[in-house]
């Protein structure tokens, strides 16, 4: 054979090899079990993984409940548990589409970081993946059969999306966790809690307070309302009113992100400047009976009460956080960024518990008279 022919054949071989590269990593859509949600539990020294799988059929355009599978496995480590699952999986499990991680109470009390470490290192989870906490066993949430959604694989993600639409910064992603845990000044993170109501319904209610990779406590929905003054966003809130003929009003509060201000270094005093526009969206019957010129006066009256009550509530919740020693407000991070000399070399958890936080709430009631 002539050298030129050998050269051309070699070139042809190389070109073929070059264009076949992708084939080694090919994934057939209808041969995959796509994981949408994973639940991680820790019980009796064993990690338990439960994965909700979607097994698409190339012939069907819509997704039916027959295509859903829930599969679980357990082992001494997350890697072990995942391997157990792969032994009995009906198809190749495709984890790159994981959108939500459910963390069981056992894992939260043990070490949340260990639960995530393997999956992060395997590039299974993205830092954008949402976290949800479960009081009890996380796997049970995936076993629930919600009737409210035709395609229950999207139930959780729809709940999260709706929540996010209403309250900015209400969801917690893995990146938030690593930012809080790996910082020079230890911070805490709030993970929304998902609750199963019977076997038919799931709902978001309160959250888990995680500090130094472990569960510090559970917080209720009212606490979260105060917390969301820190992150900003929009929220519907019903407030009982005193000293007016009206018993309660429903407020649509548009919160701005909290602005911290250092008042004094010794003793350490800071002020949380909170701003929000308030729209009364329900029960404004009082206004209907008043002439227009008196509405402004009523606005001011309601505003004063709203401000007073919200300030008290926020102060109370901030105090609770300080007592728990969990800097969920990311105040330490703020101080370390702008006034590092106040934090460096000091015991931040203790300092956080002792510092004085003043709350300055500025609200304005808008468009009271409009429907």
């Amino acid at each position: 054979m002539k050298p030129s022919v050998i050269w051309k054949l070699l070139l042809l071989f190389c070109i073929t090899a070059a264009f076949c590269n992708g084939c080694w990593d090919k994934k057939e859509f209808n041969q995959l079990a796509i994981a949408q949600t994973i639940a991680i539990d820790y019980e009796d020294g064993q990690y338990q993984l439960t994965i909700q799988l979607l097994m698409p059929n190339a012939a069907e355009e819509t997704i039916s409940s027959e295509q859903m599978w829930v599969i679980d496995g357990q082992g001494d480590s997350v890697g072990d548990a995942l391997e157990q699952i792969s032994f009995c999986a009906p198809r190749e499990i495709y984890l790159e589409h994981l959108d939500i991680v459910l963390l069981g109470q056992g894992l939260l009390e043990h070490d949340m970081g260990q639960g995530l470490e393997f999956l992060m290192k395997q590039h299974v989870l993205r830092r954008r993946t949402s976290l949800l906490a479960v009081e009890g066993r996380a796997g049970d949430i995936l076993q629930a059969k919600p009737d409210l959604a035709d395609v229950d694989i999207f139930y959780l993600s729809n709940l999260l999306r709706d929540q996010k639409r209403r309250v900015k910064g209400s969801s917690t992603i893995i990146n938030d966790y690593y930012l809080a845990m790996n910082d020079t000044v230890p911070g805490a993170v709030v993970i929304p809690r998902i609750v199963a109501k019977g076997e038919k319904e799931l709902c978001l209610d309160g959250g888990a307070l995680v500090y130094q990779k472990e569960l510090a406590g559970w917080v209720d929905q009212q606490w979260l309302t105060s917390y969301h003054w820190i992150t900003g966003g929009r929220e519907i809130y019903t407030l009982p009113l005193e000293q007016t003929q009206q018993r309660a009003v429903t407020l649509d509060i548009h919160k701005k992100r909290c602005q911290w201000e250092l008042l004094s270094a010794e003793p350490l005093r800071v002020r949380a400047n909170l701003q929000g526009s308030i729209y009364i969206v329900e029960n404004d019957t009082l206004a209907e009976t008043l002439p227009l010129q008196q509405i402004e006066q009523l606005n001011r009256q309601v505003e004063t009460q709203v401000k007073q009550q919200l300030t008290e509530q926020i102060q109370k919740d901030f105090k609770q956080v300080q007592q728990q020693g969990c800097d969920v407000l990311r105040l330490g991070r703020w101080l370390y960024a702008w006034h590092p000399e106040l934090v460096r070399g000091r015991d931040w958890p203790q300092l956080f518990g002792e510092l004085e936080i003043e709350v300055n709430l500025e609200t304005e009631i808008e468009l009271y008279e409009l429907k």
Partner: protein
Amino acid sequence: MGSSKLISTRELFYIVLLLHQGGVFWVLPYLQVKENGTASLVSLLSGLLLGALIIAVCAFWGSRCRETTFIPSLTQLLGKPLGKIVGLLFVLFYAAFAVISLYTCIEVIGGQLLLETPRTLLICTVFLLVGWLSWNGLEDMARLTVLCVVLVAAILLLALAGSVELFSVENLLPLELRSVDDVRPALLHSTFAYSGLMILFMIYPALNQTRRAASGMLLAMVVSTGIFVVWVLLALGVFGQFSTGSMIWLPLELARMIRISSFLERTEALFAVLWLAIVFVNSSLLLWSVSESLHQLLERQKSRWLHWGLVTLMALACMQIKDILRMFALEWQLARGSVVLLPLLLVLVLAGSWLYGRRKGGAPQ
């Protein structure tokens, strides 16, 4: 291989800009920010200084020896034995830098995108494509760089738009050097990354006009450093100082964070395609420099056997690097070596050019 005289100063600007995208510059943030966070960006100054020095020496040499290409000119400047030795050192440096840079690309493709594809096949494919592109000559690559700069802007904008929601200025602060000892390695890594500009000696003779070439190159270096700084600041603002120091492939991690409303997410495939186009051109330029300098050193015309033999040799060298940690070890050794070698080479070229200019009458041509 013979350089044509058809590279414009505009194309040279894009070449310099592109040399700092992909490749070694992808791992540079990881090597820099771990201990000192945002403040470690100060270590870029050593790289900038070296870059400016390379550009200045290159322009000075170009003004004295325009009638010949770089490696043959070394024998004229320094005499035959020393000129050949210095020429060989240049070839070896180009080869080592190209291997490091190409292995970085292969590691991204093999470790992050095509996990099941055998590494040997990836190396063969990458070297085949890069070898073919460099075989076609500098002009083709120079034309491609213009297109690639658009891609650089596209991926940067994509990352900016997708991550801005998570960006926090507080994550960048405070600006302080916590560990001064760790600045020294960062300075070395930074210097090594900028030493890729040494290939400008090979490209410069191909310029169709040298007027304002030096200022163009300097501007390109500053712009590319600016783009790099934006990447690092974006990553620090999103991931925080600690996490950024533990991520090797920073731009890819940022691509994983992109979520624009609910319609654009999981963009790393798009990101990777755009990035691959950039690194192929980038790597081709490096490989072309190695091949071209070797041809000049051996005083050979464009030889298929020499070019593809070199490509094969470099592919084999890449196969010897087993993982990213070994690559870092190799990069560290080269970075340490180049701190001594590069200033020495530059001084020799500078002194030789000055003496050569004086011998010719002192006036720049």
